[in-house]
Each structure stands twice: as C-alpha cells, then as structure tokens.
C-alpha cells in the first residue's frame, strides 16, 4: 500500500493552520475524503441533477441509474446476495433508529426482551432503552470484561428464549475490540432461534472485509462518512428473509405504490424504507468511496492499520502513566486507541495537542455507559485510516511529551 500516493488524493492533508500541517488522528469520528469522491458528488450537481425514479427525461434516467448502481456496488462490497437488501439512510444512527421504530411497531410484543451491550455507541443503546418501556418490552444488556471486550461468557445468562432483538457492535469505537460476530450470532440463535440480530458495523465497515450474509445476522448498519464517503449517507442491510418483520419507518413519496382515501399500498424493499428524495449526490459519491477502498483492497487496509497500531503500541509502552483501554493485541482491535493519562484530563490532552494541529478526540465518545463500566470519567482517543503514517504517530508522541511537560 503506497500511503504517500494515497495521501495526495486527500486535499485536506495539504492544509496548514498556524503554519503547521494537520495531523488527523480522528478517523473513527469521520474519515477524510479523497478528491475522487468529491468530484463524483459534484458531477451529479453539474451534469445530471434531477430527481430520481420520477423523470421520463434523459438526465433523470441518468441520475437514477447512477444512484441504483451504488446499491449494486454496496451489495457487492458487503457480500450481500441481493441489492434489494441495501437501504440508504442518513447514517448509522438513522439505520439503527429505523430498525428500532420498525421492530417495536411490527415485531416486538409486550413481555418480549431486547438485549444490547454496555459498550455500544449511544445510537445503539438509547433507542432501545427509550422505546422498550413504551411498548412494554424488557431492555437488558451484556457487560464488558476488564480487557474492555464484550463479556461473551455472560451472554447465556442475559439472552433468553424471550429475547426477540439482540444488537451489538462488531468493533467498539472506544476499546477497538473486534467482536467475533459469527460466534456471537450463533450463541444467540441457539438460545432464541427467531431473534432479530443487529450488527453495528460503523467501525468495522471502513477497516475490514465484511460478509453480511456469512455473519448470519438479520441487519447490519454503517455510515458512509467513516469510510471515505460523504456525510449524510448511511447503509442499512436487512436480510431478505427478515425484512417482513419491519413496518415502514417514514411514510411519504417514493415508498408508495398507490394511495386511496382510506388506505395505501407500499413498494417492496428497499424503497419501502427510502421515503422522500434521498441524498442523491451523497449516495453517488459513496459509490466512488467504495470503489476507492476496493481498489486498494480491504486486506491491505487492515494490514496497514495493524502496522500503525503495533507501532503506536510499542511507543505507548514507554509511558508508564498512560493506560490504554481495550485489548493489547493489535490483531484483536480496530484502528482505535483510547487512553487515559494519569492526572491529566482528556480535554487538556486534546487541547494542547491542538496547538500543533494534532486532531484527537476527548470525552466519552458517545459511549458513556462503557466509560462508567470502566470507572473512568473520560478518555482521549486516537484513530487511524489509510492515510495515517508512522510520522503522524511520532508527531503525536512529541505532542504527548509536551502535554506532560505543561503539567509536570
């Protein structure tokens, strides 16, 4: 993988602030975008800007074809069997909320149980926590081990035959822990065969090859903006065999077959869940992002990430006052390292690093229950992607040295 030439595709990496370049170490929040994606998105607005599925004229047909082509590209990228299993949403959050609202209204009944995990991003915890009581559903969750990994051993105690929805993240955005999705799905199915199983792949999709049908889950969610694509686009894959459990989430144009005074008939998947004019340019840009990733190859991307992780770990090991959250084996984690520095609040770490344009995240990273479970108020987090270099890591540690000097 030629990182030097990859970096040339990312216009933001040429920007200087305070006469210094930007060291972007917050790709888990959102990735940078290559010029190819930006140009493709622009192309829609400049050449075939028209609404989709509606016009009889050329440019509308062209826009529709470009849009639908991305469904096919997405299907192939995630190894789905059927492009109709791909729904475009706004982001992972909307994909998960769509599932929640559709399942409570169509599939869950009073007395059923929904199980999530304590290490979820708020978007895969709060919808279930909030909606369960409204529908008389019991909400429960699985905890974490001291290593910051999902406590799979306790699964058989929490999941019961009444568990109708089980939802968990494939990669934690805090500990970086990679879950054995296939194994977890199997364990849940053994206890509750008809359980609707959801995988949050927001942190997995950008970094590793995903086989949605191989996982055996019913639904998988992720965000375009974390994988080189535009903001405002999310993916929701729903297996064809399970989509019947979902009631429409949004009603309106595009999802309708016929409307009468007293009733309506709806289209099939995926249009049933894409009411209204979508972010057409965004979807088209997202297609280019997937092509960009495929051109490099997910395996190479993963290998690069493990290299950067290993390099960062070897440097971290020299800092006795820094505690890393999550597994220490780079092969067991995504390109995320959250940490705490003894006696220094994560905000102060991030603030001082910012003086050198080193962009890192501080706080609870939308995973407050996880931080509470680990008994820490907040953490600092660095995260990597295809454009991250060992030089970036060196700069980061020079910054850490300065943080320590300020607070010494």
């Amino acid at each position, binding site marked *: 993988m030629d990182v030097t030439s990859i970096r040339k595709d990312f216009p933001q990496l040429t920007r200087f602030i305070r006469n210094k370049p930007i060291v972007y170490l917050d790709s888990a929040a959102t990735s940078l975008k290559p010029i190819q994606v930006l140009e493709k998105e622009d192309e829609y607005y400049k050449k075939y800007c028209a609404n989709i599925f509606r016009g009889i004229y050329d440019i509308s047909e062209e826009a529709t074809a470009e849009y639908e082509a991305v469904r096919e590209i997405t299907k192939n990228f995630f190894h789905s069997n059927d492009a109709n299993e791909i729904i475009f949403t706004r982001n992972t959050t909307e994909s998960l909320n769509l599932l929640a609202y559709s399942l409570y209204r169509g599939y869950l009944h009073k007395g059923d149980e929904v199980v999530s995990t304590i290490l979820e991003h708020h978007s895969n915890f709060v919808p279930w926590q909030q909606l369960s009581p409204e529908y008389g559903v019991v909400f429960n969750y699985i905890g974490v081990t001291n290593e910051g990994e999902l406590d799979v051993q306790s699964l058989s105690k929490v999941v019961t035959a009444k568990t109708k929805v089980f939802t968990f993240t494939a990669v934690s955005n805090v500990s970086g822990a990679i879950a054995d999705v296939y194994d977890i799905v199997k364990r849940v199915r053994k206890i509750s065969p008809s359980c609707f199983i959801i995988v949050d792949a927001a942190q997995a999709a950008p970094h590793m090859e995903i086989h949605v049908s191989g996982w055996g889950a019913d639904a998988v969610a992720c965000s375009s903006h974390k994988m080189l694509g535009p903001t405002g686009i999310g993916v929701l894959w729903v297996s064809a065999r399970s989509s019947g459990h979902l009631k429409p989430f949004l009603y309106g144009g595009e999802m309708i077959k016929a409307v009468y005074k007293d009733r309506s008939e709806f289209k099939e998947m995926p249009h049933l869940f894409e009411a209204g004019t979508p972010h057409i340019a965004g979807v088209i840009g997202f297609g280019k992002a997937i092509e960009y990733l495929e051109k490099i190859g997910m395996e190479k991307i993963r290998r690069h990430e493990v290299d950067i992780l290993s390099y960062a770990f070897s440097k971290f090991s020299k800092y006795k006052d820094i505690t890393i959250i999550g597994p220490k084996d780079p092969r067991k984690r995504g390109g995320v390292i959250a940490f705490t520095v003894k006696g220094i*609040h994560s*905000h102060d770490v991030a*603030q001082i690093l910012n003086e050198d344009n080193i962009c890192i995240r*501080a706080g609870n990273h939308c995973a*407050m229950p996880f931080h509470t479970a680990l008994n820490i*108020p*907040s953490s600092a987090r660095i995260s990597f992607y295809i454009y991250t270099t060992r030089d970036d890591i060196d700069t980061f540690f020079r910054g850490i040295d300065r943080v320590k000097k300020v607070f010494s």
Partner: protein
Amino acid sequence: MDLYREIVLDHYKHPRNFGNLAKKTITIEDGNVTCGDTIEMDVLMKNGMVEDIAFRGIGCAISISSASMLTEEMKGKSVNEVMALSADHVFKYFGTTLTPSRTKCAVLSLEVLQKALVQGKERLK
C-alpha cells in the same frame, strides 16, 4: 498557548477551597457529563453574604482552576454581587479567548455557585 498559564496550572494542581464545609447552607452538584467534568460545591450563606465556599470534583484544568479562582474571589462577596456575574467574569481568569468547546468547562463553577445561591436563598426563607 496562553491557556495553560502558570496561574491556571497552579490553581489546577493546588486548588483552593478544595474539600468540604462543616457548616453549610446548601450543597449543589452539576457537571458537563459528556466531558466527564463534575463540580460539587458547599456554600455557607449569612446575612445576604457568601460566608464560605468549598468544592470537590473531577475535571479538566480549565474547570478545576476556574472553580478554584472563583471560590477564592467570591468568598465574602454579597449574594447579589455574585448573582450579577456573567460568564465574561470567569473568562477573564484565563486571559485569552476560549474556544466554544472549552467555554462550558470554564463557566461550570459559576453555574454551580449561582444555582447554589438561588436554592440557598430559598432554604433560608
């Protein structure tokens, strides 16, 4: 760079009025939960004056030093005087402009103190 001046770091490392009050009118806690900052304050009020203040908490250098400097300055001031203060007053402690994400760290202690005085007044009625 000015944000972490000597005085700010000194108040962070050696916060004044850190601890508890034996005699107090009220105790109030609040925080910027997403940042992991919490400040808890004991206030003793007498004859419309802030007689004594103590605080505890965890937080970044900005929130802790702000609480330290604020409690130091406000001891012995009248309740009305403290209630009239705006966020600008605490910003002055830092002698530099704060970015939007840090202003809430800086004003947390003032918010807690003013909330304590409002509720303390109720309690003394």
